[in-house]
């Protein structure tokens, strides 16, 4: 009979030891929504599953003034329900709430989404734009990787056989910051055909001083474009320059290598990714212009009428 062994570590240390011992025969499972689907379809064979959903120290979320740490097994549902004014809470919640279905979000985890590393993975794209670091643990030691280094290819990460993701760190810039995530899909519940995640900061409250532009579902991994980011520097928040926006979209699209698949053709991805970059920039810029979110722990700037 086709089955597998089930192991349930209570701590990260235990989980690492199990993985070190069993190697590639063992796979981690948290929500299981990707892995169990593949196993049922016969696309993967398993000798052991190591269930991380009972490891309590992997679920917690913590924020300081400079960094947000998301537990790897925090569910998308918990993230979608995150309530608060902080810019990062808003964009993480709004992105999570557009993924999969409410019932799947109850089970699916951020870590799982990131480790499955689908080219369309919404969290992966957003976290890349947020300059996230992925904290990885193994019996032989822990390390952190930048998101860009973590995602290596289609369903491929830089995780070694004995490693697991424990938390994801999102740096919180000192300057006022906002981020937005735009996606397009065929129906309301669907993988993204194309997506764009943008993070903007503004030192002076009027212009963009720092930008991250990442396109999703248009390359094997989230595709960041530093050229597009440079094109946005200095752009006005309240009167965004259409030429700069168009240029940013064009440059960002150049960093992608989309394919045609059953969801849509390459040409559509090329066209629409530019549109999504523009819209994500406008959305983040408008939020910044409103001065909507004070950075956690810092008082609002006085006298700016915001």
């Amino acid at each position, binding site marked *: 009979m086709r*089955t597998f062994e089930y192991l349930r570590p209570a701590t990260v240390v235990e989980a690492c030891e199990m993985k070190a011992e069993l190697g590639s025969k063992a796979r981690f499972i948290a929500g299981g929504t990707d892995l169990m689907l593949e196993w049922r379809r016969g696309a993967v064979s398993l000798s052991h599953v190591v269930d991380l959903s009972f490891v309590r120290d992997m679920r917690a979320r913590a924020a300081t003034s400079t960094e947000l740490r998301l537990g790897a097994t925090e569910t998308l549902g918990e993230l979608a329900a995150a309530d608060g004014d902080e810019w990062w809470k808003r964009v993480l919640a709004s992105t999570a709430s557009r993924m999969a279905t409410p019932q799947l979000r109850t089970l699916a985890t951020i870590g799982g989404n990131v480790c499955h590393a689908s080219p369309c993975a919404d969290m992966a794209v957003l976290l890349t734009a947020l300059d996230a670091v992925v904290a990885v643990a193994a019996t032989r030691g822990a390390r952190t990787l930048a998101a860009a280094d973590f995602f290596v290819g289609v369903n491929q990460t830089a995780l070694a056989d004995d490693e697991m993701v424990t938390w994801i760190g999102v740096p919180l810039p000192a300057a006022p910051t906002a981020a937005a995530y735009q996606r397009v899909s065929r129906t309301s519940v669907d993988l993204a055909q194309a997506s764009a995640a943008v993070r903007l900061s503004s030192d002076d409250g009027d212009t963009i001083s720092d930008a991250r532009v990442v396109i999703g579902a248009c390359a094997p991994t989230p595709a960041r474009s530093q050229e597009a980011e440079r094109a946005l520097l200095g752009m006005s928040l309240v009167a965004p320059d259409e030429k700069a926006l168009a240029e940013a979209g064009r440059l960002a699209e150049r960093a992608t290598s989309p394919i045609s698949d059953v969801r849509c053709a390459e040409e559509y991805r090329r066209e629409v990714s530019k549109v999504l970059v523009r819209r994500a920039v406008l959305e983040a810029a408008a939020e910044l212009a409103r001065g909507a979110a004070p950075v956690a722990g810092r008082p609002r700037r006085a006298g700016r009428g915001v």
Partner: protein
Amino acid sequence: MVVRLHVNGQRHELDIEPHETLAEVLRERLGLRGVRVSCGEGECGSCTVLLDGVPATSCLMLALQAEGREITTIEDLGTEDDLHPLQQAFIDEQGFQCGVCTPGIILSSKALLDRNPHPTATEVAGALSGHVCRCGAYTQIVRSVLRAAEEMEVRGER
């Protein structure tokens, strides 16, 4: 291996294979056929159960992963002799056709009304986006939930 599940207020200790999903265990071993498996891939929502009151897909989740959680299926909500207001509202508004998606939808509706007792039609539709009703009864489903919300308000119930 042994799994301990808390289902509809009752404790069960079952000897299962590790690969068995929660849906399979609920249906085959506990006879709870109101947990329906249609697409079997987490898309359609007909396998929806409540885990600690929150809607969850049961056709992909391992039964072992549900240990320590309160599992609620449609069978716990009401019986044919003692219907929950939501079930009565679905009957009165004809909020179903073939009935396959109905138990899952009613459970998700219960979870919605628990956290938002006065939803708008749009909020109801949003909360049910994880359910495919191939019969297309969405309009009457939304109406049923809104009616139940009113009823439950009047009765002071949740």
